[in-house]
């Protein structure tokens, strides 16, 4: 046995580069130990320890933002740390911290066990962080599957609720279907790019850089095109792009509210980071195929998401379908990315604005939800602003930012993406996107209207769940998030500058 090869491989394992992920994994295991040591009062303790640990990891990532491993392959090419990857790490940690905060509110209303929820959230976050840095299809598939299997459990977490279990089953079937599509695409790409009879064939065909090299030398290979389309379909499913969005309303409605938020923000954000990596680093020479496919998907996604959201009365379905339209806007940015240098920064800015606005809205939803988590109707919001002015104000800011009302962050995000699309010459798609924004304002304002102007519609006391009182910590977080939407909208400058790479 050739030991020197193994030694060479082991030398490529720079464990320091994945320190945050390792820390999250250890923290997740630590939570289980904590539950064993203090079974009586572990419920509150575990959430606090999980929060503290994640804040420490976040501080570590921020302090070492320009880490020594930037832009060089680690783990023999499995991972590729980059500034974009660092930004996504911060994004994912922020969203998992907010999910834990939401979970404290939602889990208090249910008899479900606590510890496992926090454990799985940490494992999924670590896997997401590896996913956004992956540079190799084996890594991509394994990280994606860790995330997906974790989400199967999280979506069906309220196992006494039929809605939650049914959502879990639907996510399971369609998630596994999309993983199979992705896997078959990877297998085809691996087979074609390693074929010894084709020019530029590679011994390590699953690595992005070598695959890109092969594709440049074989610009119109039929089998490679099939593989690329299958891989894109698999990822499009995870971000909920048309025609792979069918799971979104049901799963978003049935899943516990913190999990809906996690799916809507972290899973979708990571999906777009992966998509950008694939389009820019793995398939750059197949623009003739990738660009039209993604543009068509973006247009169809914007149209479908906005039109389907118009008729919804359940707020979880509404936010799911409006999330589909947000995925469409982001896809527009991805399609523009190879041609407009602004697009990458615009997508990350959009994702950050989307995170802030979404968690503001989800925070309000978590407080208004009753014991049956899937039953959250627009009517429940009637008179919210009168009875709970703080929640009403925060909700209006969050929804306004999601709709893209000018002074708020969501508007700047859309604006940057549209400018990038314009630079890339996608004028037709841009017209559809702007029409989509107009439609989206209608249903977001329907929600705000319910909270502000329909107090007379408020059903008799007792027929709707009473909102949970907002805790001090959560009130502070909601206030900061709402403020974040306003500040980022007025002054996106430093962040926009920071996101240029």
């Amino acid at each position, binding site marked *: 046995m050739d030991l020197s090869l193994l030694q060479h491989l082991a030398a490529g394992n720079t464990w320091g580069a994945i320190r945050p992920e390792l820390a999250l994994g250890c923290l997740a295991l630590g939570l289980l130990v904590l539950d064993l040591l203090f079974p009586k009062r572990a419920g509150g303790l575990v959430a606090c320890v999980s929060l503290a640990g994640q804040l420490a990891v976040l501080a570590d990532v921020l302090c070492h933002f320009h880490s020594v491993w930037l832009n060089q392959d680690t783990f023999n090419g499995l991972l590729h740390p980059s500034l974009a990857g660092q930004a996504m790490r911060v994004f994912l940690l922020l969203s998992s911290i907010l999910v834990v905060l939401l979970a404290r509110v939602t889990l208090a209303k249910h008899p479900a066990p606590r510890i496992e929820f926090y454990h799985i959230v940490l494992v999924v976050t670590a896997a997401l962080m590896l996913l956004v840095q992956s540079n190799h299809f084996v890594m991509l*598939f394994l990280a994606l599957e860790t995330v997906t299997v974790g989400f199967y459990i999280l979506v069906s977490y309220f196992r006494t609720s039929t*809605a939650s*279990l049914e959502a879990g089953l639907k996510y399971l079937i369609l998630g596994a*279907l999309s993983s199979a599509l992705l896997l078959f695409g*990877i297998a085809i790409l*691996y087979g074609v790019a390693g*074929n*010894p009879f084709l020019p530029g064939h590679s011994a390590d065909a699953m690595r992005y850089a070598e695959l890109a090299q092969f594709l440049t030398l074989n610009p119109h290979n039929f089998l490679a095109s099939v593989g690329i389309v299958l891989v894109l379909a698999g990822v499009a499913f995870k971000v909920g792009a048309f025609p792979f969005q069918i799971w979104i309303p*049901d799963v978003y409605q*049935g899943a516990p509210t913190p999990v809906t938020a996690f799916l809507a923000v972290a899973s979708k954000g990571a999906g777009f980071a992966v998509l950008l990596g694939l389009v820019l680093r793995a398939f750059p020479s197949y623009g003739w195929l990738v660009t039209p496919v993604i543009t068509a998907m973006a247009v169809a996604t914007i149209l479908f998401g906005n039109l389907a959201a118009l008729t919804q009365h359940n707020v979880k379905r509404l936010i799911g379908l409006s999330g589909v339209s947000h995925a469409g806007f982001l896809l527009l940015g991805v399609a523009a990315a190879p041609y407009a240098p602004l697009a990458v920064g615009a997508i990350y800015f959009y994702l950050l604005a989307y995170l802030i606005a979404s968690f503001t809205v989800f925070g309000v939803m978590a407080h208004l939800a009753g014991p049956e988590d899937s039953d959250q109707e627009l009517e429940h919001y009637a008179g919210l602003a009168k009875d709970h002015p703080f929640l009403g104000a925060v909700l209006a800011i969050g929804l306004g930012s999601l709709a893209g009302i000018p002074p708020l962050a969501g508007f700047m995000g859309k604006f940057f993406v549209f400018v990038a699309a314009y630079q890339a010459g996608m004028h037709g798609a841009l017209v559809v996107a702007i029409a989509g924004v107009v439609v989206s304002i209608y249903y977001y304002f329907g929600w705000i209207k319910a909270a502000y102007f329909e107090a007379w519609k408020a059903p008799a006391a007792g027929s709707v769940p009473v909102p949970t009182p907002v805790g001090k910590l959560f009130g502070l977080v909601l206030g900061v998030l709402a403020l974040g939407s306003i500040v980022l909208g007025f002054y996106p400058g430093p962040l926009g500058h920071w996101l240029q790479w």
Partner: protein
Amino acid sequence: MVPETLNAYIGLSAALFALGFLGVLVRRNTLVIFMCLELMLVASTLALVAFSRYNGTMEGNVFVFFILTVAAAEVAVGLAIIVALFRRTQTIRVDRLDTLKR
């Protein structure tokens, strides 16, 4: 391996994959759907092994072990969800599961 043999393997793999895909779309029993999903994973595995042998690289073979592990985890979680759902609703037919609004 000669190209004709590779074609046969890939043809079989594609046929199995298509069969699994159609099964997921058409069948109504959750357990059968689940088997069809596994069939799709196995079809990809077969393609990977055939390509790996033909190309003379080991990566495809190694990937197969990871896929088997993932499939096992997926089945464990999936069957748990199906059992929990059956206990509540006494059915595992997808057309009878309509608690969530369409």
